[in-house]
């Protein structure tokens, strides 16, 4: 059993199901990527894992515990963290305040965790008194990661972390994501830039119309001629 897994999920926003028996999973210290065309249900799968959308069938298992019926806030206090695709920082608040807000639910001393974030992303320490809205795209994404890390999560879910950034910033963000993974966390992300994401991923899930079509290690998927043809542009 994987550390976090969604099993045979069926979910819908209205009468029409978006996910059909979709399964994803991630282990600790592993980077898993969900790729697929637009409207494949990638973000929906992530919302179900987070409890922002209730599945009509299937289950979500975290660390051996069935969390299918827990609220988002309860899942966050268990150790799940989510970095949304857009509007993922408090733009009018300083970097430091963003991190403090990330640790809002914690009753204990959060200064050590803030220090950990600064150690991981040294540029944030330099900019700690600046408003997050004044930072560059890559730095903003670091603030977003840092904010999510404040609950000391063991699983981080990232929704298209490289959407709308330049290729140079994209490399920077991918290297940050590898840092997150190497610190022992489970990282599951949804990505549009499939080629680059599969290159660094330990595991990949290809979704089409809410169904798993291919599953394997990143290398296997890149080598698979069908996946190459359909999703990676030949």
């Amino acid at each position, binding site marked *: 059993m994987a550390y976090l897994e969604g099993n045979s999920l069926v979910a819908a926003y209205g009468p029409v199901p978006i996910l059909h028996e979709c399964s994803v999973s991630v282990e600790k210290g592993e980077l898993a990527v969900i790729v697929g065309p637009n409207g494949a249900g990638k973000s929906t799968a992530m919302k179900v894992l987070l409890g922002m959308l209730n599945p009509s069938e299937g289950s979500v298992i975290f660390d051996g515990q069935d969390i299918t019926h827990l609220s988002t806030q309860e899942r966050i206090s268990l150790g799940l963290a989510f970095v*949304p695709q857009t509007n993922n920082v408090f733009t*009018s608040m300083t970097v430091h305040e963003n991190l403090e807000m990330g640790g809002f639910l914690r009753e204990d001393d959060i200064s050590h965790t803030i220090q950990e974030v600064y150690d991981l992303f040294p540029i944030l320490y330099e900019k700690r008194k600046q408003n997050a809205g004044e930072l560059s795209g890559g730095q903003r994404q670091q603030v977003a990661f840092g904010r999510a890390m404040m609950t000391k999560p063991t699983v981080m879910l990232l929704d298209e972390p490289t959407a709308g950034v330049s290729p140079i910033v994209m490399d920077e963000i991918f290297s940050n994501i590898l840092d997150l993974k190497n610190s022992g966390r489970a990282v599951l992300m949804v990505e549009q830039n499939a080629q680059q994401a599969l290159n660094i991923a330990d595991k990949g899930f290809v979704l089409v119309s809410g169904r798993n079509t291919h599953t394997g290690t990143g290398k296997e998927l890149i080598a698979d001629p069908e996946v190459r043809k359909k999703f990676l542009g030949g």
Partner: protein
Amino acid sequence: MVSESVDILNAFALLTNFIIVPAIAYGSQLALGALAVTLIYSILRFSNFGQGDSMAFGAVMVILMLALFQSDWANANFGAILPPFEFLSFVPTALYALPFAVVFTAIYLLVMDKLVYQHYRRIKAKPITVCMVSMGLMFVTGGIVRIINGPERMTFDDGARFLFSVRDFKEFTGLTQGIAIKTSQFLTVTMAILLVAFLFYFLNKTKTGKSMRAYSDNEDLALLSGIDPDRVVRVTWLIVATFTAIAGTLYGLDKGFLPFQYHQLLLPIFASVIVGGIGSPMGAIVGAFVVSFSELFLTYAYKKFLIYLLPGYVPDSLVQLIGVEYKYAISFVILVVVLLIRPTGIFKGKVV
């Protein structure tokens, strides 16, 4: 009256007495009201048309408490209300009633939220819908105020009328033109400074205050961070009630309590918020003083001022740019000009 020489000192004393001192006091009252509107706008995300009438509610609660303080029953059971220290004897009794008024206003606003606004938050109503709802509640609040007080004017300032009077000032400086500071003006400015300092400390330094800013900045991310929206809303109403009741009472002490005047106060308050930049607390304060100074500078009759400055010249008219009865038009003009020229306001708020 024709002066012999240029008399800058007296001219300045005249302006200070009739424009600067009253404008600072009036600006402070507007600023407190404007801060309440700003807080509601940024956190509850609607323009609260009920602000003026809520201020009247705060003031009328003070009037009610004063009636209770001075009743035979209270005198028989608790004795007359006396200031705890001799040097506080200049303070109007209304100030002792103020904490009660703050509590009653808070209860009133929280009940209104529970009964009305909460529903519109749940169904995620558009801001303009909630705006109209607040307009309905404005009439309700105004009605309650007039049921309690009646529509007529009521004065409730006692204690010393002046901190120092024109005569004190003349004796002290030897100028022919005096400057007086009313107790109510002194109290207004002191309390406004204390409240604003508290608000900025609260929003920038405390965990609850920061969570309110976070909620205002990005509601979804605040929820993901575990910030409880119901608590944010409650705390917001508590602060708004405090500012509202105090601003309403201070305005009533300064100018007398007249329900309809509070209702009209909405225009200068909204003008302050928009001039300063919608959603910016600092902007609300600066905007309030822009509005109050414009009102007083434009409606003042400059005849006596010119007599001091231009020896041998007596103007035929009062030299008043705009009649006092048009003072609300000034707020309106400021509002229109700002929206045309710089819709973001001085402090770059949100565009309407």
